[in-house]
């Protein structure tokens, strides 16, 4: 069980294969209620996905002619990407701002972000009517450079690569690949900077998709600032998900899967995350308020859609923001956990509003879109598959676990080297001299 912390020596391909075979075996009990329920949903979802690809979308999806996009886009892609926001925010805090104290959660956040992109945004394949053409925007079967979606597609692909580079050292540690790890770790800062840039554009880009749906979206939601709103809300959405996963992980994973350090610092980190959420949420609320005032939409508040808007803005934004603030002030993690769940719910509703609820809000119920049961099952199957894969990885790869000793040493060595090179000028040496001294010492 303690394989992760000891250095693994693999001398041949045979050793490697034996190791992989051992790792493929399930860890922990198989027949738990959670596994049985989610497993059968995944199975059923898989069959329905096959059915959809053979017969076309119409047999699975509720076809409401007025609604181009259903929950696969409105929920899986839109919410999935917002929920992946924790990856770029934590990576930014740790690698760019040097927030070393959050180091223990950064891998969990990035893994979640990476998997969210793979599964949720990857689920776009389901929703593409002509999915076999999916590579067209990449391979240049015409580049739609004036299209927001073209940019979103490219940023999606590039960010997935950046996230993979960010998380790859953990996998190298798992496989005991020392030199590969060293190389991958040297790419991290670059990948993080690229990742934050791409995320800024990707998150806001998803909002920009709705800019041309001008009269189709209720005026309380439609504003020229949709991209900004999507970007800002992805920050607290992502962090709330990190709070959620971090809390749940502590409860569901075996003790030896979670580093002592992480266990001890989690409550403090939670408070900091709550603080970041509270600040960004109040900023977001202020933005929403200014947009409302600017748009002269007061009268619309006293309509059914207005009540729905207020539910979102007060019930699922202002209240959780206040709960976050309260939790931070009193140093109490309980309200922060509740606030995180409420915030996630608020973001889910917000994203669904744009493509479904506030989209052609004026149509009679009979013409409106509701997801079919098959769409819901497929959606759940995708979410649960992601949870399974996340669990599989956390049970094997040092994500919440402390990295193996050799990796920690490698990291320290590099840090000292970097520092020596950087400090060289202050000691009256050139940077190159600093490097040389290090090299000599190594020998």
């Amino acid at each position: 069980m303690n394989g992760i912390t000891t250095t693994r020596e693999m001398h041949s391909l045979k050793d490697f294969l034996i190791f992989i075979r051992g790792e493929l075996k399930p860890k922990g009990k198989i027949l738990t209620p959670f596994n049985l329920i989610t497993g059968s949903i995944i199975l059923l979802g898989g069959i329905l996905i096959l059915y959809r690809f053979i017969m076309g979308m119409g047999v699975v999806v509720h076809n409401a002619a007025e609604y181009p996009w259903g929950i696969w886009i409105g929920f899986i892609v839109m919410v999935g990407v917002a929920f992946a926001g924790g990856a770029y925010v934590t990576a930014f805090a740790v690698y760019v701002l040097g927030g070393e104290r959050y180091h223990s959660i950064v891998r969990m956040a990035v893994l979640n972000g990476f998997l969210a992109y793979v599964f949720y945004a990857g689920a776009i394949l389901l929703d593409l009517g002509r999915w076999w053409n999916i590579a067209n925007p990449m391979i240049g079967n015409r580049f739609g450079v004036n299209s927001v979606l073209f940019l979103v597609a490219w940023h999606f692909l590039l960010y997935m690569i950046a996230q993979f580079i960010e998380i790859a050292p953990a996998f190298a540690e798992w496989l005991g690949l020392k030199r590969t790890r060293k190389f991958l770790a040297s790419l991290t800062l670059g990948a993080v900077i690229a990742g934050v840039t791409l995320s800024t554009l990707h998150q806001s880009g998803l909002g920009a998709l709705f800019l041309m749906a001008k009269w189709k979206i209720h005026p309380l939601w439609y504003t020229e600032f949709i991209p900004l709103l999507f970007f800002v809300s992805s920050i607290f959405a992502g962090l709330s998900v990190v709070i959620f996963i971090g809390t749940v992980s502590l409860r569901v994973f075996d003790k030896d899967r979670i580093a002592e350090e992480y266990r001890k610092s989690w409550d403090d980190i939670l408070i900091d995350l709550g603080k970041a959420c509270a600040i960004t949420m109040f900023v977001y609320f202020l933005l929403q308020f200014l947009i409302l005032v600017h748009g002269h939409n007061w009268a619309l508040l006293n309509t059914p859609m207005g009540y729905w808007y207020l539910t979102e803005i007060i019930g699922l934004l202002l209240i959780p923001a206040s709960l976050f603030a309260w939790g931070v002030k009193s140093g109490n993690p309980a309200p922060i956990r509740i606030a995180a769940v409420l915030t996630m719910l608020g973001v889910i509703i917000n994203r669904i509003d744009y493509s479904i609820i506030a989209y052609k809000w004026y149509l009679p119920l009979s013409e409106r879109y509701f997801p079919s049961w098959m769409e819901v099952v497929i959606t759940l199957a995708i979410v649960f598959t992601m949870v399974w894969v996340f669990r599989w990885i956390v049970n094997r790869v040092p994500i919440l676990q402390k990295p193996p000793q050799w990796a920690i040493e490698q990291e320290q060595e590099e840090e000292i080297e970097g520092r020596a090179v950087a400090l060289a000028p202050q000691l009256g040496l050139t940077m190159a001299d600093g490097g040389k001294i290090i090299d000599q010492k190594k020998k």
Partner: protein
Amino acid sequence: MGIDRRTFLKGLGAGIAGSSLLAGRLEAAEAPANKEFMGVLVDTTRCVGCRTCEMACAEAHKLPTPDISDASAFEKNRPTSETQWAVVNRFKTDKGEVFAKRQCMHCNQPGCVSACPVKAMEKRKEGPVTWDTNCIGCRYCMVSCPFDIPKFEHYSATPKLQKCNLCWERLQKGEKPACVEGCPADALTFGTRRELIEQANTRIYKTPKEYYPHIYGEHEVGGTGYLYIAAVPFGQIGFRDDLGTIAYPEYTKGFLYSVPVVLLLWPAFLSGVSAITKRKANVRSKEGGKV
């Protein structure tokens, strides 16, 4: 390690130059070509609701033949569909029954074209907005169309996007669109946009009592290839009168412009911040403090 002020400024300069370059290109790509667009003028005062145009359209594009003798079709306002590129609807207005044909408006600067990530939707220099099979089926064009025209074959495993293409294949052979040729009431006129606007204005000037003084499509969403004149305000015959005159691609322009700026300035800024925090950490550790 890190970047000095010079590299930062260099990056900044390159960023601004690069973004303005890209912005310039965007502008050029969005602007209508100099060549005159062809279009169709629909004079709803002449339309008798015979639906011959629907028939001609179905025939020209091998779509299921509509039953035009079935008068019950007028009971509901029918949108265009994946099997009907053109439909005629009946409206009860201040001036009695009015029939109005609906199909793709062939915007001068179409939302669907700027939405398409693979340029499957294309504004041809002759005027038609056409669809091509390199489409990925994302349906973003449907979200972005101010007239809600493109329709998707939900029930097909190899779905196509269906909409009027102004008989692009006939136009290339020098023929008129099938609906125009089929119209027995002379309600449809084919020509360049400029000619059609002139003609529409002439009709309105000559018989002002018969017309509401507005050409729908002259300025709406930056101008459309299909133009309409009618006896009543257009809100009464199923047209949105709140679309404005701004071309739809303009709504995403601001965002698209900001993309190259963010793409170039963000990494420079982030590298700077990271270099500063590293330096601080180093200084602190040198002074014996804890990192």
